[in-house]
């Protein structure tokens, strides 16, 4: 078992501000239990994971192993049965905009335009800013995801891929501390998926928001991540293996595919999944 060992730093300084540690997100002995008529069903048990600032982590594992449960617990949408989750040392107690979520389905309000959907979050988080400033923030991120021509299109008129672009813009626009992505491209065709991966990584390279992403796609996991977490199959799922991806950033898809280590990484992941 190759559990990651983190060197605990007592303090971490950035821009002159002293933070308690370099750890952004800390899952400690996390446990999730669902009561069933036949007794308790333990989904996750004794799960420990620390994610650093500006780190992009992808989580891979078989369907039903509890990846999504874990992510929604981090988001605060699903109560914790045991252990704890903290963001910068503050324990998570319910959902909040410091943890932005990109859902598997775009989850846009279909009666709102693309801009209104992004504004919904921006208005909430930057309530102290002026109306013009808030609009500019929303427009900036829509521009970043390549939707500058579709500000005023109703969400329902956009294609699935376009809708998910709005979802990405909405998540980044509220400037969360942690970005949680729950198989955001799982419902898209492979061409659109590639496009959206490029868009996501381009924005991420600029914003460097700590990201945790669930995926089923081995190539996606390698291309986007600094670290790939492999989860064992449930019940009582935990972290089975961790793979550090040492490609330089910013990376392009071409560089990654041509890198001599790429197939090694890929083999490692597939071996784990086929076990």
């Amino acid at each position, binding site marked *: 078992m190759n559990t990651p060992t983190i060197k605990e730093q007592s303090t971490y300084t950035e821009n002159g501000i002293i933070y308690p540690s370099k750890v952004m997100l800390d899952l400690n002995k996390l446990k999730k239990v669902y009561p069933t008529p036949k007794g308790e069903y333990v989904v996750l048990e004794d799960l420990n994971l620390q994610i650093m600032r500006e780190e992009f982590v992808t989580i891979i594992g078989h369907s039903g192993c509890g990846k999504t449960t874990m992510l929604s617990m981090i*988001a*605060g*949408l699903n109560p914790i049965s045991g252990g704890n989750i903290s963001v910068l040392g503050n324990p998570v107690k*319910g*959902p*909040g*905009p410091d*943890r*932005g*979520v990109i*859902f598997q*389905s775009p*989850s846009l*309000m*279909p*009666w*709102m335009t693309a801009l209104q959907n992004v504004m*919904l*979050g921006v208005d*909430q*988080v930057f309530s102290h800013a002026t109306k013009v400033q808030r609009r500019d923030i929303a427009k900036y991120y829509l521009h970043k995801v390549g939707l500058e021509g579709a500000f005023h299109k*109703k969400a*329902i008129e956009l294609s699935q891929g376009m809708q998910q672009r709005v979802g990405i813009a909405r998540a980044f626009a*509220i400037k969360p501390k942690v970005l949680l992505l729950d198989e955001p491209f799982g419902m898209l065709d492979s061409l659109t998926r590639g496009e959206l991966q490029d868009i996501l990584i381009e924005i991420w390279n600029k914003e460097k928001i700590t990201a945790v992403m669930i995926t089923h796609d081995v190539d996606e996991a390698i291309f986007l991540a600094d670290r790939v977490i492999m989860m064992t199959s449930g019940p009582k799922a935990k972290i089975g293996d961790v793979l550090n991806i040492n490609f330089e950033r910013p990376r392009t898809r071409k560089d990654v595919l041509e890198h001599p280590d790429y197939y090694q990484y890929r083999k490692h992941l597939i071996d784990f999944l086929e076990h």
Partner: protein
Amino acid sequence: MKQSLTMQKVTQLIGLGSLKSLSNLFSGKIGKDGVTLMLKKVVAPLASILLFIGLWHSGAKALYNMEADFKIEKALNDQGEKAADEMRACIAAGETGCQPNTLPSPAQVWASYKSLLKDHNAIRADKLAFKEKTAAMNAKRIAEGKDAITYTGRPSFVDQIMTSLKTVFAGFLLALLIAVPIGILIGLSDTLRSSVNWLIQILKPVSPVVWLLLVFMIVKTMTKNSESDSAFIISFISVGLCAMWPTLVNTAMGVASVDKDYINVAKVLKLGAVQKVFKVILPSSLPLIFTGLRITLSVAWMVLIAIELLAQSPGLGSFVWEEFQNGAMDSNSKIIVAMFVIGIIGFLLDRIMLTIQQMVSFNKNEGV
């Protein structure tokens, strides 16, 4: 071209898409499929209307003959051969005194329709004349602080329709103002829903007549000392109470069944309660609320006639009842005219609601 496009949109929107083929017919745009389409959308409905009128005509004629035979036979039995011959001659001559009283034929109904219109025009002219005559006097009376003299003549058929529409809209508005807010509250809270559900389930199937009596009990006492039009108040409140249930149930259902994803988005963004309701929950349940309102309006129109009839308040319902009591030569055909008017207005109201429903619905294919 642009104009015809907008025309098409309008007809499509009000749910009369079949008119499209008619307009194509007149602009000479009939393609290969045009003929089949025309057969389907124009010829077939026209044929069904003609068939309906034909059946009605022959049915009315058969009933007329049966009734005439009864009359002749009765005269024969009661007063002998001579009276029977006189009756036969009288019926054949078309004299009004001895016509059999039965289902009127389409022609009679059409004639009654025209006479009702003529009557309306006469009354309107009368009213205008009255207004002119009393204008100077009324101005003086108002200056003196007295009430103006108002026209107190008989209302025409069209006036009755207007009264009915006024009552139904007042009732509909009342239903909307009661059912939508309560529906939202019930939809938002599980506890509230389960605690008042029994009441809704019991009250929902109560007959319009009972509502009327209940409202009558309350309003009668409350309006004892006021000069307000209690018949109107009673009927519109009863209409509102009878018709609000579909809106109440649909609103509660719509609010309670908002997509979980939208609720999660609201949670992640930490929207406040008010914002959550107005920005997420209400817009997403609007289509269901409007489906409820559409049913409410058609129920309101349906029970209105019965309630007016019972509450003695003016309108189409009392028109029908008075004509029935009246028993004049053309009473039956006037009742049939009223029946068609009620049906057509009901249809138009439903179309208006459908149009509004489609405008507020984010999924344009819903409803119909």
